[in-house]
């Protein structure tokens, strides 16, 4: 057989770039999609159900901010070869690191709770009781991580990422008003009501989550991507940011087109899924529920483990699944503790699932500016980044994001008080 044709194709620069991109791809897309977790989907669907098309404009600034921040994480990871928690420890010493890790632990525990409550809710949509679903899910999460190898786990995750397409399909099935959607996307509709501000901070907090910055950087370091391929990784980060926001956009759209238009009151994802049946058909409803289960499981697999890693590595405790409990007690304690505690709390009858989801997003929002400030300190340090320090524009965008989120968080805290 003559391979010259293949060889010629393989040698073409365009194809070569594509191959390199595909091999580097992963961290950005996976991170971005884990980002659309239980808390995310709940927030998006409530945003669509309660505010209709009004909040769609937010997606353009969110894409820009998320792309910039993800790119920064990827760049820091590749240039320094270290995770964010490590860099923070080396930059500001143990005190601030310790406080940051405590805060991250709490916020991430909130997120883990949200993921397991997401599992409970989506199991409920399919009629599976949570007392059965939660232990099974916890076992699944544990097995996947402890028994799987990274390659297979990454494949599972990439596959799971593609399941998010179900939301785009659901969006189309809902038959939205495309003209109005396009108009709302570019024309901001701003309101100063408490509910509106709360929803904005929820959306930003769930899309640009603090743990995500730690996660993307670690996975880039893990993949051992070299400086030469930095531009492909940047592309991955930007691509991931766009994909995640498109998915989120369709969730808002689906709910806006059906639930909001028909003036139905919904309080959680189960309501949303049920409300979709008469309005957009059975398939849209089932797709919605499957997507939700997938998202919750996906994030539940990643969050407890990555949290245990950051905390242990930055404080100098032994970390690693392959290490025994005796060898790495803090690591295993944190990892299992996060999962078990979350499952137990969610199993309590009549636990307020929605408040948990909501509070976890608020915790994210409160922590975000601090993580951003530390990131900015490190990424502008020539000793760490050499000539790869941030450009003025990137600094401006991330500072703006930090200030806006902080302002929103503070105003939210005041409205609650």
């Amino acid at each position: 057989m003559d391979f010259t044709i293949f060889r010629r194709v393989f040698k073409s620069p365009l194809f070569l770039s594509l191959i390199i991109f595909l091999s580097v791809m992963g961290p950005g897309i996976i991170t971005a999609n884990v980002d659309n977790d239980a808390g995310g989907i709940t927030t998006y669907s409530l945003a669509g159900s309660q505010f209709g098309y009004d909040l769609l404009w937010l997606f353009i600034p969110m894409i820009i901010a998320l792309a910039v921040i993800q790119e920064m994480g990827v760049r820091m990871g590749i240039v320094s070869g270290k995770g964010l928690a490590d860099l923070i420890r080396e930059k500001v010493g143990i005190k601030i690191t310790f406080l940051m890790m405590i805060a991250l632990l709490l916020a991430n525990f909130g997120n883990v709770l949200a993921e397991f409550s997401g599992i409970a809710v989506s199991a409920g949509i399919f009629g599976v009781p949570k007392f059965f679903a939660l232990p099974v899910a916890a076992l699944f999460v544990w097995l996947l991580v402890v028994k799987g190898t990274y390659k297979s786990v990454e494949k599972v995750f990439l596959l799971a990422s593609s399941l998010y397409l179900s939301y785009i399909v659901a969006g189309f099935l809902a038959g939205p008003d495309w003209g109005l959607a396009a108009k709302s996307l570019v024309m901001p509709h701003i309101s100063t009501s408490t509910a509106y501000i709360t929803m904005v901070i929820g959306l930003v907090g769930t899309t640009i989550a603090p743990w995500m910055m730690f996660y993307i950087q670690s996975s880039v370091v893990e993949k051992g991507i070299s400086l030469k391929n930095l531009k492909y990784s940047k592309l991955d980060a930007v691509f991931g940011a766009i994909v995640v926001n498109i998915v989120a956009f369709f969730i808002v759209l689906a709910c806006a087109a059906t639930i909001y238009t028909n003036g139905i009151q919904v309080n959680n994802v189960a309501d949303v899924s049920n409300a979709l049946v008469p309005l957009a058909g059975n398939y849209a409803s089932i797709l919605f529920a499957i997507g939700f289960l997938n998202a919750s499981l996906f994030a539940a697999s990643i969050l407890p483990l990555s949290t245990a890693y950051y905390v242990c590595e930055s404080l100098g405790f032994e970390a690693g699944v392959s290490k025994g409990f005796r060898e790495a007690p803090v690591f295993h304690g944190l990892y299992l503790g996060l999962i078990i505690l979350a499952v137990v709390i969610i199993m309590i009858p009549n636990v307020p699932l929605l408040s948990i989801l909501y509070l976890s997003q608020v915790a994210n929002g409160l922590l975000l500016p601090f993580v951003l400030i530390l990131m900015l300190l490190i990424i502008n340090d020539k000793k760490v980044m050499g000539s790869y320090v941030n450009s003025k524009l990137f600094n401006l965008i991330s500072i703006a994001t930090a200030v806006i989120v902080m302002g929103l968080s503070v105003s939210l805290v005041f409205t609650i008080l």
Partner: protein
Amino acid sequence: MYLSDFIKKPVLSPSGKKIGKLKDVVVSSDHSYPIIKALEVNISGNKTINISWKYVGKLGKEVILKYPLEEIKEYKIQKHDIVLLKDVLDRQVVDIEGKKIRRVNDIKISPTNGHYHVIGVDIGVNGILRRLSLNRIAKPLGITSNEDLISWKDIDPVESDYSKVKLKVPKQKIKKLHPADMAEIVDQLGLNESLNILNSLDDESAADTLEEVSPERQVSLLEGMDSQRAAEILDEMSPDDAADVLADLPEEKAEELLDLMEPEESDDLRKLLKYPENTAGGIMTTEFAYVDQNLTIKEVLDSLRKMAEDVETIYYVYVISKSGDLVGVISLRDLLLSDPNSKVSEFMHTHIIKADVMEDQHEVAQTIAKYNLIALPVVEDETKLRGIITVDDAIDIVLPTAWKKRVPRMFGR
């Protein structure tokens, strides 16, 4: 005493007037337990001066100087000096004994006849509690643990400073490690630290280490270092490993390195690179022992002695005919047990188990396992010997190095 006991503590003049705060401690790396050479003191605002140890009267909760500030000449930091807070505290160090990477939570300092020595680093919970000033609360609560101290003799500070090219401290200690252990450490450290370590090794140790590093890391390391140095390391690597790395590099970079290598080595590599990665040709090494079929057993042993240094295994010697065809193979055992004066062709095995250069690597591994071979010859056109695949490479196929070592950080180290 620990570093955290005096950092940020007030520095007083002999008259008891406060002149500043202790910012950092400079030690000399010349001793196996470094001696404090100077104190970096933060006086008013952003100004700092380095005060030589000879002017320091007392080191403790307060630092008292022997002379007033005006009479003190500033200490100049030398090449081999280590600045503790900046270079060591909170950073990662290589624990030579435990063959692990540790993070320094505190630094233990001990006075002996007028000098202060750094004797070790604290990597435990106590260090963290002390730094957080929680140790007084922790003790009554019963949160205490044994001291987790590593002797300074057993650690190697790794530097991460992007701007530093030259090593301040030559890495003597780390050379004690086995290349496989060193590779594991290189895999876990940041890229810049890994490069620092590799750059401090001689070509041969660097090559041995690089062979054991995970494939992704190999690529980033070779791309990150000076091309001339990379070529020198590749020269020292065994050709099959070198070819694997080169195949993973972008084509231009691979060409550049091949051109910089010694012609003899690069010719071998170019031949190897022709074969697809997952075939026998792609994983074989070209460094094998072979002799002419007309030699006597004694002559074979003599030439084997000469070749031994450069070949992958001496246990099998391949016998080649005048026309360059593979006609037989003889094991070292047979060579030793046979009559030295008889021809090698009388004792060699002529039923040769071999693989074609294009054969799939998994089949190769199975053949090696099935016939319990130490190495398998790889031929092209039925009889032309091109290389051998040794049993350790076969193990790597079944249990890839990548899998053995690079069970990644996130999902188990």
